[in-house]
């Protein structure tokens, strides 16, 4: 069988899914993509600018989408409802009616953002001027300026790190890895839009692990005078004028503090996509204790699942930045190619057995 006759189903049309589709298509495979939303691009659609260079998100998204071959078949507003494996083929049902057959499945279902309402004490969904980092990107996209819900330019803006991450109380022990740099990027953008505003960031640790992230952190301090306060937010209360009073600890000064703010931005973390759980049951794939898909081997085979022919890439295996997700997608594409060319599984489980 030639590669062109082989069919790969990708579940999730975010950046990882699109990137894998392009590379697998280049290798000669027929590609179908199932996407639960009405548009492709995933969360990149909602982002204004990317770290660490403030590049417009739309530019990267356009680049990814424009590279996609025309013969990729999309199933939008769709989900996989049933899968049966027969020998080396998967019979897949989409939206409970459409049936397709494929030789391999790639899961790129991405992640969901943490529901900040769970941190009730922060008042998201209750106090008007408490927003999330995802909301702020939307505000930037809509207005290209930063405003309170009263339509005023905020004089004080507080960013809160680790909302839903590294938090035993909500059951998420992991670091979401990109919230620190997202917050620093947004703090700089907020200062650019409201130069007179005082901007604070409450943090436990600033984890600037990526290339040029540390530069961004220094720039925020030296050029934009963002004030970094080491300590977690305890609670938020609303005052009569709609502004907010924050109670927090300053662990370096060793004392509790109160800070007034006109706008509070909660830097929400990653949580496993809602479909992770259902797909793991349907496809007999393991999820790790954090709820994200468990790779076959965390060090040397991150794209294989325990089921032959099913692979995964991107943030569905844990929090990742965009470039890591794209690299992971290319890696998965190659993994699938080897599997289909050699006609056998190449994942570590089979090698070992």
């Amino acid at each position, binding site marked *: 069988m030639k590669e062109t006759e082989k069919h790969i189903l990708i579940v999730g049309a975010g950046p990882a899914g699109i990137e894998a589709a392009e590379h697998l298509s280049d290798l000669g495979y027929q590609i179908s993509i199932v996407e639960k939303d009405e548009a492709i691009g995933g969360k990149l659609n909602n982002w204004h600018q990317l770290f660490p260079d403030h590049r417009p998100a739309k530019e990267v998204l356009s680049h990814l989408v424009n590279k996609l071959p025309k013969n990729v078949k999309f199933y939008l507003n769709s989900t996989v409802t049933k899968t049966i494996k027969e020998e080396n083929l998967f019979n897949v049902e989409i939206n409970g009616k459409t049936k397709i057959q494929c030789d391999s499945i790639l899961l790129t279902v991405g992640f969901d953002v943490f529901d900040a309402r769970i941190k009730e004490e922060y008042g998201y969904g*209750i*106090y008007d001027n408490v927003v999330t980092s995802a909301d702020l990107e939307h505000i930037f996209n809509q207005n290209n300026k930063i405003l309170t819900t009263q339509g005023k330019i905020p004089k004080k803006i507080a960013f809160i790190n680790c909302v839903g991450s590294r938090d035993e109380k909500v059951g998420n022990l992991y670091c979401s890895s990109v919230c620190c740099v997202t917050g620093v990027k947004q703090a700089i953008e907020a200062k650019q839009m409201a130069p007179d505003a005082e901007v604070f960031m409450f943090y436990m640790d600033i984890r600037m692990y990526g290339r040029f992230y540390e530069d961004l952190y220094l720039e925020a301090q030296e050029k934009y005078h963002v004030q970094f306060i080491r300590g977690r937010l305890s*609670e938020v*209360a*609303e005052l009569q004028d709609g502004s907010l009073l924050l109670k927090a600890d300053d662990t370096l000064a060793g004392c509790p503090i109160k800070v007034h703010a006109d706008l509070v931005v909660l830097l929400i973390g990653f949580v496993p996509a809602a479909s992770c759980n259902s797909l793991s049951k349907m496809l007999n794939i393991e999820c790790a204790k954090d709820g994200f898909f468990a790779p076959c081997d965390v060090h040397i085979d991150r794209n294989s699942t325990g089921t032959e022919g099913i692979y995964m890439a991107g943030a569905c295996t844990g929090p990742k930045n965009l470039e890591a997700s794209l690299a992971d997608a290319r890696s998965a594409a190659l993994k699938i190619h080897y599997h289909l060319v050699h006609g056998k599984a190449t994942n570590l489980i089979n090698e070992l057995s």
Partner: protein
Amino acid sequence: MILEGKKRVWNEYQKEIADDKYFYARSCIRQNFFPGAEKTFLQIMRNELGKEVYDDPKHTTCTGIAYHTDIIPLETIMTVVARQFSLMSESGYENYVPSCITSFGIYTEILELWEHNPELEEKARDFLYKSTKREFKKPKNLAHASDVIFKFRNEIAQKAKHRLVNCNTGEPLRVIEHIGCHYARMFPHKGVGGAEYPYVLAGLAESFGGEVVDYPERRTCCGFGFRQYLVQANRGYSVACSKRKFESMAPFNPDVIITNCPGCPYFLDRWQYVISEMEGKIYGQNGHGIPVLTFEELAGLMMGYNPWDIGLQMHQISIEPLLDKIGIEYNMHNKYCDAEGNFMGKPEIPELVKFY
């Protein structure tokens, strides 16, 4: 403020509250601080709502304060709690209703502890049997007395003679609701509305037409905090804690503070006087301070009970300005008379806080 957001939280924290046949466990301190409150609760439950409430004279303290101040060990409090449950079982009741928030927290905590550590429950049963030859069943339903009043709030409001509305302006009175720390902080799902935005008193105030005020130090302790009051050298912390709350609520011009814990009304009431003497600072309107009510007193007042029959003369901060706003008539001559009409004597008048 997005009210829908609060309602969403309230909906997530519903609890089961039995609708009749209650075993009532009184509070050690509520009986002493505000002696009319528990009587008012029983009167409303039995006479207004027609419910069966058993008030067992054989029950004791739950020893919660001793437990939280490290005076007694876990085994002791478990055995005392086991005895309380045995009294309930012996009298044929299954629905346990403590008056005290600390007790409610203790019972909730110990039931959870037994749930996860059955060997501790066995230990408590063993200790109880060896010391008293008693046995017990665990409550089918555990609810604080304020939960029960909350459950019947609409029925009470329908029967009420008064509303939490300024009789001169028609405006709703501004209500500060203060929830005892041990009500839902340890187990948010055991409290009506959860721990962060409790609805148990807010709902009660709303049913009487009041407007609940959300202020920054809403979640802060009343100042009791056990060790910060019980250890005399720490009492400065207690006053400072209450002061922080008063400073925070003052700009919102509250008309009344309502509470569900026995300790909170005492400290929020008495410390207003202490702060006035220490710093010359008086909160509330016209130099009278902010009146403080327990939930039973509030319900009793709304029902039209005589303020002096339900013990409101025991408050340090005069309650009369609130009565005037609501339009409740009262007789000043009876304020300090006992049930037979005998004059009991007047308290010393404070220097700064205006007193009726």
